[in-house]
């Protein structure tokens, strides 16, 4: 029995969420190519230097907020119901939150579109960080708020399913996939609180004219309270795949279930009190505060380093089960021709590389060398743009047949797609890092200045621009391959062929029975998280609001 036969209603929900995610990555990817062509000066005929910022906003929102969030709520809906072997409590509620998320997305996207399309009376060229006092139309903020509130509904749905299961299985350990999904959604509740307060209490009423001023430093601090934890909201679903499905795809099984739980608990606890490392260059925040949050930032390396161990160990175990031998020779025994495997393996490789870049970004003083340069988007195109996005695409090849009952089609195209993505990203991201080191700023439509000569080491600026554009085009071709496979599979006949994948996931080598039960008690971990947050964010926020919530205040300046 496949998933779609066991849970037809839930499968429909997951398919819908994934379809919206894929529409966003398709659209966002096309916009990304336009940006690469514009910035590097290869083609500036299609739109103006000012329109660039609306396009950049749309690219950021579609990729970082819409694609990720929709894929994640779909993936987790599958993981929770599969691992608990129970449906969601009430699908009307499920469709309700999915509808709310969709409405919010449309509202926010149309608001951004208004910056380019004359007859839409909105503007939102504020980028996906929307720093006040640059102001977007109220519909943009409202759309983002609905997207977030809708995603809270997803979290509630998973927790309700867990509680129903708990009532029937009082003494059992929480299945690993559900444990991970719930831990991630708890992290999401905690961190989105910051951006929800920013949007609902400050920016939305301010853009409607209900309050005259907001404090730019306070609102951006609330944004960054959310802004780094959100990357773990993207990353943990990729880890969910790496821990629970990838070992099986390698031919073996997970190394250690208890350590996987420890890793997710560490992320839940540590991932929010780190946001100030995005504000090292900000005035009005003390160096002491920045130092404290730098320390927690470096400690959050630990769960990622543990994950690196598990992923490689599980791969090696799988390879040896498949007959691989030798110190490194086992690598040849892995199923590199299967895109679900190769995509995740390449995603892991990209993540290892970007981890080192992240250590540079996190350094209190070293950060000044790269802050707000092209290095930073170079970094996150490796993390969220490859480690996360390529994992999501790869697992789609494995998941979609189970969600639809249809065999994957265009399998040759699927087999080359992850490699195309990886090579394209190596070129593009490498070039972005290097022009960033030369000082080229990010978020700028035409980064050429008569006062500044950028000194690029080794390669010329022209060569690096060629790498950027060439990489971007390869990425886009890879994206088209992915979408072709998905659409073609979707249009196929159900039951015409056996789906050729099994959703069975083998037990871990070391099972949950070896780990302390307290790991499964989320109340303890949420309490600890809140305590750390109080220590990390209590004093600076208290200091900022001491002279009033809205002072020093700025009136809106339409973007």
């Amino acid at each position, binding site marked *: 029995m496949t998933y779609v036969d066991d849970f037809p209603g839930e499968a429909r929900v997951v398919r819908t969420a994934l379809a919206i995610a894929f529409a966003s990555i398709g659209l966002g990817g096309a916009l990304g190519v336009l940006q690469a062509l514009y910035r590097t000066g290869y083609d500036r005929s299609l739109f103006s230097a000012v329109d660039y910022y609306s396009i950049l906003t749309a690219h950021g929102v579609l990729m970082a907020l819409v694609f990720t969030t929709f894929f994640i709520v779909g993936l987790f809906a599958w993981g929770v119901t599969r691992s608990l072997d129970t449906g969601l409590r009430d699908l009307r509620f499920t469709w309700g939150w999915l509808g709310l998320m969709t409405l919010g997305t449309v509202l926010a996207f149309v608001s951004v579109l208004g910056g380019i399309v004359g007859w839409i009376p909105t503007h939102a060229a504020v980028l996906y960080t929307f720093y006040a006092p*640059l102001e977007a139309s109220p519909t943009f903020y409202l759309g983002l708020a609905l997207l977030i509130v809708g995603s809270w509904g997803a979290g509630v749905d998973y927790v309700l399913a867990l509680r129903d299961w708990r009532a029937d299985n009082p003494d059992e350990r929480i299945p690993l996939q559900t444990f991970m999904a719930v831990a991630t959604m708890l992290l999401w509740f905690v961190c989105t609180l910051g951006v929800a307060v920013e949007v609902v209490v400050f920016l939305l009423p301010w853009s409607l004219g209900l309050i005259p001023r907001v404090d730019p430093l306070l609102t951006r601090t609330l944004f960054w309270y959310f802004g780094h934890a959100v990357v773990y909201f993207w990353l943990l679903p990729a880890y969910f795949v790496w821990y629970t499905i990838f070992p099986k795809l390698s031919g073996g099984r997970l190394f*250690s279930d*208890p350590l996987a739980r420890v890793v997710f608990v560490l992320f839940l606890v540590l991932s929010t009190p780190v946001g100030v490392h995005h504000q*090292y260059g900000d*005035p009005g925040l003390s160096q002491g505060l920045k130092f404290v949050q730098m320390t927690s930032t470096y400690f959050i*390396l630990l769960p990622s380093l543990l994950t690196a*161990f598990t992923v490689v160990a599980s791969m090696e175990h799988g390879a040896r089960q498949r007959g691989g031998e030798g110190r490194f020779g086992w690598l040849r025994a892995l199923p590199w021709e299967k895109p679900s495997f190769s995509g995740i393996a390449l995603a892991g490789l990209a993540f290892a590389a970007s981890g080192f870049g992240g250590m540079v970004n996190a350094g209190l003083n070293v950060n000044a*060398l790269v802050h707000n340069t092209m290095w930073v988007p170079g970094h996150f195109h490796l993390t969220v743009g490859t480690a996360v996005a390529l994992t999501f695409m790869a697992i789609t090849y494995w998941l979609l047949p189970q969600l639809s009952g249809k065999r994957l089609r265009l399998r040759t195209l699927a087999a080359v797609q992850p490699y195309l993505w990886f090579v394209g990203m190596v070129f593009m991201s490498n070039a972005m890092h290097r022009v960033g080191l030369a000082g080229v700023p990010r978020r*700028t439509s035409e980064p050429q200045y008569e006062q500044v000569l950028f000194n690029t080491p080794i390669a010329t600026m022209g060569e690096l621009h060629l790498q950027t554009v060439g990489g971007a085009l390869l990425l886009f071709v890879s994206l088209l391959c992915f979408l072709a496979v998905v659409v073609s599979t979707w249009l196929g006949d159900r039951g015409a062929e056996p789906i050729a994948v099994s959703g069975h996931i083998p037990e871990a080598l070391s099972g949950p029975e070896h780990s302390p039960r307290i790991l499964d008690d989320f109340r303890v971990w949420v309490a600890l998280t809140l305590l750390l947050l109080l220590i990390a964010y209590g004093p600076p926020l208290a200091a900022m609001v001491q002279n009033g919530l809205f002072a020093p205040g700025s009136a809106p300046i339409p973007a």
Partner: protein
Amino acid sequence: MEIHRLEKIWIAVSLVFIVALIASIVYGVAGIGVGTIGDTGQQLDPNGLEDTRFADPGGHWVDDDHYVVNVVARQFLFQPGTQEPIMVPANTTVTFYVTSPDVVHGFDVVGTQLNAMVIPGQETKLTTEFDEPKSYGIICHEYCGAGHQSMAGQLVVVPADEIPKNASAASGNATTTNASASADVANASAQASVATPEVSA
């Protein structure tokens, strides 16, 4: 809880690595004196800069070896910096104060560690010392609106004796030294070596 021997070693190595990273930063801050932007404790009304140090932007000596430059970053120029270069003395402690009357901007002196945000209502303080005469570009690296891509300026380091010591004049010296200094720009930028000013707050 059972943990594999290799995994225990890996955890230990990871922890040592993390502590070493933090230690390297501590050494940079405490040992070499390279910190980042801090809190000056001073907030201001973005609409009332006329009552602050930013009323008349520009540079002035505070004593024999300390030069202060007040810069206003606004849509879409640095005052001074864009229409006239910021002139600062070499081998002298230089402190920049930067603020914004409108939106969030960036203040990045390309090729140096002077790289900070400029936020309405706050003052950004950067202290440094330039080793030798040289010309630098300044870029606004935070998106600030439709003209963002054009927001840039110039910083020119000249020998200290070329900046008149009329401490009282907060304004004026940047423009009066302009003519003589711009001749040095050509000389300064011809030098290949890169000065690496240190930021401390």
